[in-house]
């Protein structure tokens, strides 16, 4: 798998309302890689993801997935949103099965894969529950299972834990890290949270707003064998502080 975002710019509106939201973004993501985009609100993180998902078209530049240009949404790029992520009228299992049945897969295959991916996210027991009966963290796990069920080449996560409270967020970070290690998925994660990005991603891009652009890239070479320990380890805290002050100075220079 090879995702290539080349010199992509994006503007919204026309004439006097024309607004340049992304300028000259280039990213590359390969199989098994976990990449994060961090940046303040309005720096265009979601727009990058929507472009990759094919929900928007670039104003300039190109996006290629395995050599083929991205022109529309497709199940090879799974997406998880922060809010309204599940279909409220479907049970957890039906939500996971949703993409498979949209693709017209056979009944037996759908049943088997649904059970498998519910199990992967640790929610086999919740199969028959409606989203409103699930906690926020469980809902996001179902959403991740649903995105994985159609076997996308890359998983796009737009602040998937942004609406969860701190404690659940931490356990979800551990869950996602564990999932990545077990399944070898390829992921692009958007977050406000530097700690989250550093914990999970091998590569972290820092974005600045007006217009949105990548201003700094970090390759995180930390030992991730124990996330709980990593959170409070000295090198981690130092790196976190360095990036935090970088983000602060970005905000400061824009005031």
């Amino acid at each position, binding site marked *: 798998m090879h995702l290539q975002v080349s010199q992509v710019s994006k503007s919204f509106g026309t004439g006097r309302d024309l607004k340049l939201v992304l300028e000259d973004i280039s990213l590359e993501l390969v199989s098994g890689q976990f990449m994060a985009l961090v940046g303040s609100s309005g720096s265009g993180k979601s727009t990058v993801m929507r472009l990759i998902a094919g929900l928007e078209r670039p104003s300039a530049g190109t996006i290629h997935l395995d050599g083929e240009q991205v022109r529309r949404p497709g*199940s090879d790029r799974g997406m998880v949103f922060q809010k309204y992520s599940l*279909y409220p009228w479907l049970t957890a299992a039906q939500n996971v099965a949703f993409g498979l049945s949209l693709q017209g897969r056979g009944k037996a295959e759908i049943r088997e894969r649904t059970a498998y991916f519910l199990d992967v996210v640790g929610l086999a027991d919740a199969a028959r529950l409606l989203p409103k009966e699930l906690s926020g963290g469980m809902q996001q796990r179902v959403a991740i299972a649903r995105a994985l069920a159609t076997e996308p080449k890359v998983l796009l996560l737009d602040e998937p834990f942004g609406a969860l409270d701190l404690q659940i967020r931490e356990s979800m970070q551990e869950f996602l890290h564990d999932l990545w290690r077990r399944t070898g998925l390829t992921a692009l994660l958007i977050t406000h949270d530097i700690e989250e990005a550093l914990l999970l991603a091998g590569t972290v891009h820092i974005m600045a707003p007006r217009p949105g652009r990548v201003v700094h890239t970090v390759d995180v070479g930390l030992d991730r064998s124990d996330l709980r320990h990593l959170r409070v380890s000295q090198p981690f805290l130092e790196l976190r502080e360095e990036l935090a002050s970088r983000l602060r100075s970005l905000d400061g220079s824009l005031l």
Partner: protein
Amino acid sequence: MASPPTLRRLLSHPWVLGVLGILTVFLFWLLVTSIGVVDKLFLPSPAAVWEAGSSQFQRGILVNDAMASIRRVFLGFVISAGLALPIGIAMGTNRTICHLLEPLMALIRYMPAPAFIPLLIIYFGLEELPKVMLIFIGTFFFNALMIMDAVKFVPSELVETALTLGGRGLPILTRVVAPFIAPQVLDTYRINMASAWNLVIVAELVAANEGLGKRISLAQRFLRTDEIFVGLIVIGLIGLMIDLGFRFLMRRACSWAN
């Protein structure tokens, strides 16, 4: 004997309170008519109304009238609801269609439907068609605009999730938009059914051979206030049944939304 906490729990039950409210008004009515402070001609007693009602029932008039009114409402409303659904969805999903139709519909919506009666009589005479048309005119625009609004409030994430799962075209409509708006559509129908029910009575007051409204306007001619009361109560009861029917349907079909 019920202990105080049980009594309080019982009293706070919505059904119990509702019945209590109705019962209070009924008892007040009974009281006022039995001590005779109001002329019987103005306010007949519950017994007299019951009498008039059962007489109408026995002569078959009551059921006949009710069926005539229900048939008109049903016909007009089914056409209105059936057309409003695709048009409302089209307006909610397609900006061009919305810009084309919304101002027009918003304008017609503010024209009081009963004001169309003279025109409808000129066009279609005194038969069933003008009455059915009146119900259509009086509810279609509300139905369509309210369904359009429901569609516009479908979270874009739900549609976009389906797109990223490989969905496209019609399945997005039938498997995402339709289930999401179902509760609001049922509620829209429930609310606008009330105006349909009002309109059929208005139409029958003006011109009809049968129907609950017709019976009321006949009763007025002969100063039969007891029969007017029969008509009013039956109209109210049928309306309430329809309302409860929609609520039941909604609870059964859209339990996820409660």
